[in-house]
């Protein structure tokens, strides 16, 4: 069965070398390198070499066409077009492409038309050279020597030209098809700054980055990961600024991945991160080219994945969640204030319910008298103990939030108002929960969005702390805090301590954490990441008024 053999061959050919690396002693493993066992039966290696031969093109158009059609059996989007090259002498040829991935107009105008009307003198010997040199008005052309290559190219959106009696096919890149255009990023909206966000197409994303950095030092290095999806993944870094060892390590980690699909950068993140069991992300992501460029300039490495607008950046530090691109485009005072607000909001969202539960259950003596009276009055009639109330309210809030995300837009507004007002108000008046608890929940909810990248982290931490608070009061909360801190401090993201510059404190880097120092004061890159190329600005850039003497009347 030719199809099976072919597909086997394709799979094995690509991954055999890596498999051999991983399991040098176990030839048996080679047999089952796809989770879908049905596609692969155990086939000894010997067959591969023979298949290698049958994998190359024959030159017999009928046979080749047949082969292609059988590879793409039941792919109704396959288009094959037979025609004759040359206006006078005609050499038979056909093109194969997948509808929807190609730019039809370009194929018609730049591929078929010039070939059909080719005036040049051609014969079997020079047909390739002539076509490449004189006929195909296509910028990206390469030669294909095997069905594996050809199939790969067709699947990527290229058009393949098979020529009679030629064992080499020409692959022309005339990709098109409907794709999302570059538009404003929905998850990272700002007031001031560029609004462009990445899209799903890798080359567009690479282009967006190139536009930000017109620098040959910006290197892109591509790999394909995912045995079924064959997703293209690209590692981007600034040579000379990024740490060479980090780049090497990233590339090694990516090569190590052996899975069948990479559907989103999150999949890659799961395979390369430093703290796979940790709550805290050690790999960052961004949707906008200016953010990624800034990170590259600090010495980080970016990983672009085809099919998703979310680009990964490593190493990722805890404090990065509190730094927003917009901070750097606005004036320092407000940016500093907003930074403090973010820290405050993060602490509020994680600690407030736990502290409320702890203090009202274990340590009422810490409440000022007036507050105690209000809380006592409110909690007087409620049936649940404070911890249960807190957990209940938090769960309801999470349900509301998740539902709000998935609601169709027309219904969304109404339901969220219903959720907030009715449920909250009704719950209070029916005596199910106390009013202070609703206030606490609302505060927690709103604060959780101030630091968007840590929303999911803070939710889990919050629940754990509420449980600790309910069982052992303030003592439990403090111990929980200590445990989390210890864990965070021990994390590293590609060798860089996760909590720098807070934990191994680098005083010079704190100016971008505690405050947002004016741009002319940030002279150095973060020491632990871009230490190799420390200076990014010349000193004395602070603007001063012009000399009086030269001046005005």
């Amino acid at each position, binding site marked *: 069965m030719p199809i099976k053999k072919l597909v086997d061959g394709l799979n094995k050919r690509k991954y055999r070398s890596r498999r051999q690396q991983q399991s040098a002693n176990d030839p048996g493993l080679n047999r089952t390198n796809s989770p879908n066992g049905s596609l692969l039966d155990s086939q000894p290696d010997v067959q591969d070499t023979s298949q290698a031969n049958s994998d190359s093109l024959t030159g017999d158009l009928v046979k080749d066409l047949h082969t292609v059609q059988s590879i793409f059996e039941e792919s109704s989007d396959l288009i094959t077009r037979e025609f004759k090259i040359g206006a006078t002498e005609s050499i038979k040829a056909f093109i194969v492409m997948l509808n929807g991935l190609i730019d039809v107009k370009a194929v018609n105008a730049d591929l078929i038309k010039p070939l059909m009307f080719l005036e040049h003198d051609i014969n079997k010997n020079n047909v390739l050279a002539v076509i490449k040199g004189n006929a195909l008005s296509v910028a990206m052309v390469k030669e294909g020597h095997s069905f594996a290559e050809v199939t790969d190219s067709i699947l990527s959106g290229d058009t393949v030209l098979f020529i009679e009696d030629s064992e080499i096919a020409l692959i022309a890149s005339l990709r098109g098809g409907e794709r999302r255009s570059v538009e404003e990023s929905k998850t990272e909206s700002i007031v001031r700054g560029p609004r462009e966000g990445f899209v799903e197409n890798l080359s567009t994303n690479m282009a967006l980055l190139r536009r930000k950095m017109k620098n040959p030092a910006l290197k892109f290095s591509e790999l394909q990961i995912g045995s079924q999806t064959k997703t293209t993944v690209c590692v981007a870094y600034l040579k000379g600024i990024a740490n060479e060892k980090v780049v090497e390590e990233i590339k090694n980690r990516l090569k190590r991945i052996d899975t069948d699909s990479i559907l989103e950068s999150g999949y890659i993140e799961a395979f390369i991160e430093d703290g796979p069991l940790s709550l805290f992300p050690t790999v960052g992501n961004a949707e906008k080219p200016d953010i990624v460029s800034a990170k590259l300039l600090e010495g980080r490495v970016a990983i672009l994945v085809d099919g998703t607008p979310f680009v990964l950046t490593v190493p990722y530090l805890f404090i990065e969640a509190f730094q927003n691109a917009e901070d750097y485009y606005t004036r320092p005072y407000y940016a500093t204030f907003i930074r403090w607000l973010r820290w405050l909001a993060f602490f509020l969202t994680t600690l407030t319910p736990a502290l409320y539960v702890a203090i009202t259950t274990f*340590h009422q003596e810490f409440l*000022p008298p007036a507050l105690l009276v209000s809380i006592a009055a409110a909690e007087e009639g409620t049936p649940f103990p404070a911890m249960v109330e807190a957990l209940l309210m938090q769960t309801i809030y999470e349900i509301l939030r998740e539902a709000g995300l998935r609601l169709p837009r027309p219904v969304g507004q109404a339901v969220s108002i219903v959720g907030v007002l009715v449920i909250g108000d009704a719950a209070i008046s029916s005596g199910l929960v106390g009013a202070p608890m609703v206030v606490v929940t609302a505060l927690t909810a709103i604060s959780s969005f101030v630091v968007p990248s840590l929303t999911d982290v803070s939710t889990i931490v919050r629940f754990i702390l509420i449980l600790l608070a309910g069982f052992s009061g*303030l*003592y439990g909360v403090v111990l929980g805090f200590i445990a989390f*801190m210890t864990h965070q401090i021990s994390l590293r993201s590609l060798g860089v301590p996760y909590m720098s510059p807070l*934990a*191994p404190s680098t005083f010079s880097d704190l100016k971008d954490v505690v405050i947002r120092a004016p741009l002319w004061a940030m002279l150095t890159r973060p020491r632990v990441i871009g230490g190799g190329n420390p200076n990014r600005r010349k000193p004395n850039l602070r603007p001063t008024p012009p000399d009086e003497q030269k001046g005005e009347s």
Partner: protein
Amino acid sequence: MLEEGRITYKQLILLIFLSRIIVTINYLPALNEPPLNQDVWLSELLFFPLQLLLALPVYILWKRFPNQTIIQYSQIIAGKLGKLAGVLIIWYFLHSTAISLAQFSLFLTSAVMSETPILFFALTLVLVCAYATRKGLEVISRLSELFAPLIIITFISVTFLLAKDMNLKTLTPILEKGVLPVFNGSLIYSARSVEVLGLAMLLPYLNNRQKVKRVFILSFGLISLFFVLITIPVLTVFGVTEARRLTFPDYSVIQLVNVGDFLERIESVHMAIWILGTFIKVTFLYYLTVLGLSQLLNLKDYRPLILPTGTILIPLSLLIAPSLVELEAFTSYKIFVWYSFFFILLIPSLLVLTAIIRKKG
């Protein structure tokens, strides 16, 4: 590996500092030791130069053996006897950890959560400390670096908030009983500093050899300063007689903070901060015990020792302190000073002498 981490000099200073002040400030035994009057703060100032003097043996030993901890070089200096010294020192670390743990549990039980059994506090703290110890020296030092500013700022703010209640006249008359009791007091405080031996263990892991002198000076200087910072509000707000009768002077004094009827009851903050500090101290001592033991036994890794030591630690702390009274009796200056000086002063001094005589290092 045994310990590959490095500690920077700032981190070491803060670690020593936090460890020394945190339990002391909660109990402030100084109030009931010579001098038994309002000159306590003078004793605390005098503590700084005195402690430096008493830490000299450790410094000299470090100079001779810059890359080894006291457990390691004591074996080199004195062979089998050195090993014995090592065992004694490790016992002292273990004992200190247990005492700190006992003090921690007793405070929480007396002042805040009175119905919870002591075992609960001891157990949970040991678990968290074991976790941190497992992570190694770097994590411990980074934790101390992170928590120290919080603790320092809190106590400084408290001093400011109490300023309006402080009656400086209570500090007079100065030197009422003369200098000798003051000096006695300083001597007693030096006896409590197990951190001197901690330095002996950690100096080899210091990042930057040049800064060792600075570590000694800054850490003890800071400690001394902080003691004064804590004692003065207590003395001036309560007066000497009542202050001496308080079990937890600093906690009681923070209960009195009342600014504009709005900023009050901040002892919750004090409690939280104090738990952070005690965590650092217990982790530090726990780590020293486990590291020392593994060096003594020439093990490759100290991690397997952590949990077993923990299981010894908890009952030991419960044994030491079934009640506050017995604990205070033991740590009171009459007995404890001699006991401590044996380890902190005598053993290092003997090691120095032996090293000089035998021309080692």
